[in-house]
Structure formats: C-alpha cells, structure tokens
C-alpha cells in the first residue's frame, strides 16, 4: 500500500479523466488502471445544463478518491478561488495546484505557484503543486507548507517522457521523505517505469492513456509499468558499467585445445 498524506492507496498510478473518447471508456480505463485517485476539474456550467452532474455521478460510481485541479488558472487569485470552489463541490481539501505561466509550454508560473501554495496551505488545503523539476522551487514549495511535490518530466501532453533525468534524480536525492509524483509529460509505459525506477513515489498521467488507440489497454499497460518500476527500485538496480562481465561462471570451463 502507498501512504499518501495519511491515506492508504492501492495504486501508485494517478489518472486524469480528460480527453477520453467517451464516458464509458473513461470508466473502463479507470478500472483497468487500478488507480485509487483520479483528477477532476471545474468548468462553467450552462444554464439548465446537467453535464457536471452526469460526470460527477460517473466518478462517484467508480469508488475512487478525487484530486481536483486548478487547470487553466493563470493567476494566484484565480487558482485560490478555484481551489476553494473545488473544495466545496468535491468535498476534499486535496488540490492539484496549477498556476500556468506560459501558453505554449503550459509551464507553471513557479512564483505564483509558491504564493498560491502558501495561501492554500494556511487555509487547510493539502496542496499538490504541479511544478517544474527545479530544486530550489521545490524547496520553496515545501517551505510554503506543501507535503507532496508533483514535478513535470516534460510539458503537459507532450509524451516526451523524462527529458531531464539529472534534475529528477536530484529531487529524489534531496527530498527522500517527501512524496514525489511525476505529473505531466509521460508518453509511454517505459517512461513511467523509468521514473519509478528512480524512486519516485507515483505518477500522474492522462493524455497518454486517454488518446491511445485503446485507452483501456494502455491504462493496464501503465499500471504494470508503474508496479514494475517500483519493484525494481526496491530490489536494487544494477549500476551500468563500460566493460563486459560474463554472466556464465568461467570456473570449470572445458578446455578443448
């Protein structure tokens, strides 16, 4: 079991709920992934509309915990207000805090992120900050009261996978006791396995599953990769070396000439 802020979770894979071909496929993908936590959002409801009600009813039927986000917020004020609205609607103080700083890369505005994190932590939220892999920003977020960090490994939806292994290693090394969840940029199950092998506690992904030709199959594949990477991390990986080492014992080798 994975202990995340005092909550025991069966899975180290957190799954987004956006961009699936249909609500039924979303539900099947969530089940196939084995996830315990899905991310959700808040958007404007149309007058007389029931879209939000239908979606929320579907999510509740899946028996998973929700992690609401502040996606699309570009200012501290917007993010803080959205977080408070999410707390009321979803009945959780968990919030995936996003303060976007750049339209093209969806790179977090880390200055606004730290400010918003401080305000929300003081207000009793458990803040899951969507951040870059910058070590100093991570320190500031922890100082602001965050108990978990969610660095990207590449821009949202890019499917590039871990582009800066050194930075990810550095975060893991500096914060051995802080839950670290790679959020954004994972494209393949092997990417998820790679970051789990580095010792990350979990991954959060959405597009790589939702936009796969078969989201349900891909959800299952990512689930296996996350488990494999975690078990490998715990089992002690062999360090790479530049020379060959025979795997078959050389003692007792026959000599024919």
């Amino acid at each position, binding site marked *: 079991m994975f202990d995340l802020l005092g909550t025991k979770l069966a899975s180290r894979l957190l799954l987004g*709920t956006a961009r699936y071909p249909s609500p039924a496929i979303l539900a099947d993908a969530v089940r196939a992934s084995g996830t315990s936590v899905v991310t959700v959002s808040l958007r404007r409801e149309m007058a007389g509309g029931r879209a939000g009600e239908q979606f929320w009813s579907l999510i509740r039927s899946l028996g998973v915990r929700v992690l609401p986000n502040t996606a699309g917020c570009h200012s501290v004020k917007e993010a803080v207000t959205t977080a408070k609205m999410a707390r009321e609607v979803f009945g959780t103080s968990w919030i995936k805090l996003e303060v976007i700083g750049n339209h093209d890369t969806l790179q977090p505005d880390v200055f606004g992120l730290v400010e918003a994190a401080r305000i929300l932590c003081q207000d009793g939220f458990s803040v899951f900050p969507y951040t870059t892999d910058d070590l100093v920003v991570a320190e500031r977020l922890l100082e602001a009261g965050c108990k978990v960090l969610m660095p990207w490994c590449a821009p949202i939806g890019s499917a590039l996978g871990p582009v800066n292994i050194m930075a990810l290693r550095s975060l893991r090394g500096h914060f051995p006791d802080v839950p670290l969840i790679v959020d954004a940029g994972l494209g393949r199950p092997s990417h998820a396995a790679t970051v789990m092998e580095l010792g990350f506690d979990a991954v959060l992904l959405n597009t790589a599953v939702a936009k796969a030709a078969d989201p349900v199959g891909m959800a299952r594949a990512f689930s296996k990769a996350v488990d494999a990477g975690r078990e490998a991390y715990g089992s002690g990986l062999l360090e790479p070396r530049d020379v060959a080492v025979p795997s078959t014992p050389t003692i007792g080798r026959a000599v024919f000439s």
Partner: protein
Amino acid sequence: MKLIVNGEALEVEATTLEALLKELDYEGGWLATALNGDVVPAAGRAEFRLSEGDRIEILSPMQGG
C-alpha cells in the same frame, strides 16, 4: 438588473445569488459559485445581495488532468 453570468451579459429579476440560480434554471449540490472573483459558498447564497454589474461564475464538475 444587469449582470455578467459565466461571461455573458444578462438582464435578470433576481436580487440574491440563490434567486439567480433558480431564475436561470441552475440546481444541484454540485454547483460552485463565485462573485467578482471571490467564492460564495452554497450556504451563503440566499442572503447574498446582487448589485448591478456583478460578475458571477457558476461552475460544476468536469473532466480534468
């Protein structure tokens, strides 16, 4: 009274936030409201008086990553 509701200019009869939701056919415990950028919790909607030109956001759960 003229208001901006979810980015749209509207002329309404309602004078409280609760009455506005009813007038515009919004109902349900899954809605969240904000007025001029600040949250108005469900419990506070009945006594929340609206003023000319107020900007109201009415949000509900949606898919997210």
